């Protein structure tokens, strides 16, 4: 199961390295979003850490959707999904492997987006980096798991491209809420709250719950 998921994830990462179809677009998109919101909020007039935190998270979530739109594009070209479905591996591996690839794309995007965000919003006093990075990594897991499942659901739909953001965004709201809280908290003394009921604990809980739900149902979403 894990081995098969890794093999599928590897294929998707290799394809992305060769074709550079998704991540490059995601990078431009996240940069454009950050700049647009920066101008919209006039952040240089002192929009405050809360607005800055919110902006980063909005940009990350929208960019993630862009990547998810292509989650099964490589399989669609030549019907590779059929071969994966008939392979003697747990069918959840297809979803998990694709989610792993999406997680990787998001990490690459954030490696560029977070420093850019930092540069535009805080010249001197920024948040403590560790909680922000931890929150982003945890949120990446959640959005990759849930988003890939939703992308699978939207596969057979006539309006797949408009449908997917509508499916994913409501599910991502709790992630954004907790992520913004963690980021904002990282400006303060307490450093973002690593406790069980703090935002980071919540993000981990979100990941676990949707891992279980998506794992249990992913068998049903492909094929038919």
């Amino acid at each position: 199961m894990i081995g098969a998921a890794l093999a599928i994830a590897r294929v998707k990462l290799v394809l992305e390295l060769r074709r550079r179809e998704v991540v490059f677009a995601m990078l431009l998109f996240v940069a454009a979003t950050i700049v647009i919101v920066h101008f919209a909020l006039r952040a240089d007039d002192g929009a405050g850490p809360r607005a800055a935190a919110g902006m980063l998270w909005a940009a990350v979530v929208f960019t993630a959707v862009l990547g998810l739109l292509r989650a099964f594009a490589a399989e669609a070209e030549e019907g590779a999904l059929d071969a994966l479905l008939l392979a003697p591996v747990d069918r959840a591996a297809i979803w998990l492997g694709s989610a792993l690839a999406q997680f990787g794309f998001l990490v690459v995007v954030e490696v560029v987006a977070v420093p850019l965000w930092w540069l535009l919003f805080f010249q001197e006093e920024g948040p403590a980096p560790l909680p922000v990075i931890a929150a982003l990594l945890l949120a990446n897991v959640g959005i990759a798991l849930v988003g890939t499942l939703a992308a699978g659901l939207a596969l057979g739909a006539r309006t797949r491209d408009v449908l997917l953001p509508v499916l994913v965004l409501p599910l991502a709201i709790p992630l954004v809420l907790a992520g913004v809280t963690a980021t904002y908290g990282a400006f303060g003394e307490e450093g973002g709250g690593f406790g069980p009921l703090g935002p980071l604990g919540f993000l981990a809980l979100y990941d676990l719950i949707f891992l279980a739900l998506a794992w249990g149902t992913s068998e049903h979403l492909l094929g038919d």
Partner: protein
Amino acid sequence: MTLEECSKRFGERLALRKATLAVEPGETVVLLGPNGAGKSTLLRLAAGLLRPTAGHARIDGIDAVDAPRALRAGMAYAGHRSQLYRGLTARENLALHARLHGRALDLDGSRAAVGLADRADERIDGFSRGMLQRLALARATAHEPVLLLLDEPASGLDADGRTLLDHVLLEGRGRRTQLVASHDQDLPARLGARAVRLDTGRIA
């Protein structure tokens, strides 16, 4: 492999109507019929890639859609599309397939079987339809399936390719169960196989 009164509906279109068909282990059956007769639907139902609207598609008595991994390990299906990743080389595609089947990559065996010659390390975006079809056939047979489902495997193949396909099917006769959809009216005779005709979703 059996279909019992299998029907499949897509929206308001009834693609297959109460099709009943039994293919014995080791038997080779050729499905004949015009375009849109329901051949592809029947094969996808048999492979468990579609869930029948009514009736059952079974393999060894188990519903094909719920086929456990052990059963899927012995199945192969090749359809209109090659089921390969276009950005990968032929070798990488076959390696992924071998990996998912828990087997070692036997490139020499596959290459000999379909005449891929020396193009194994080329990305398949550059391949012609015929080459893709050969590679798809190599993929489908690489794990030595006991049930082989082929949907118009000859399309896009040149004369050499067709000979090769006949060779693969003849070789498999008696050794595995084969169900082949085709437009080639002479195929049943060439293979010494039973022919089943399908028209507007019905088995004639």
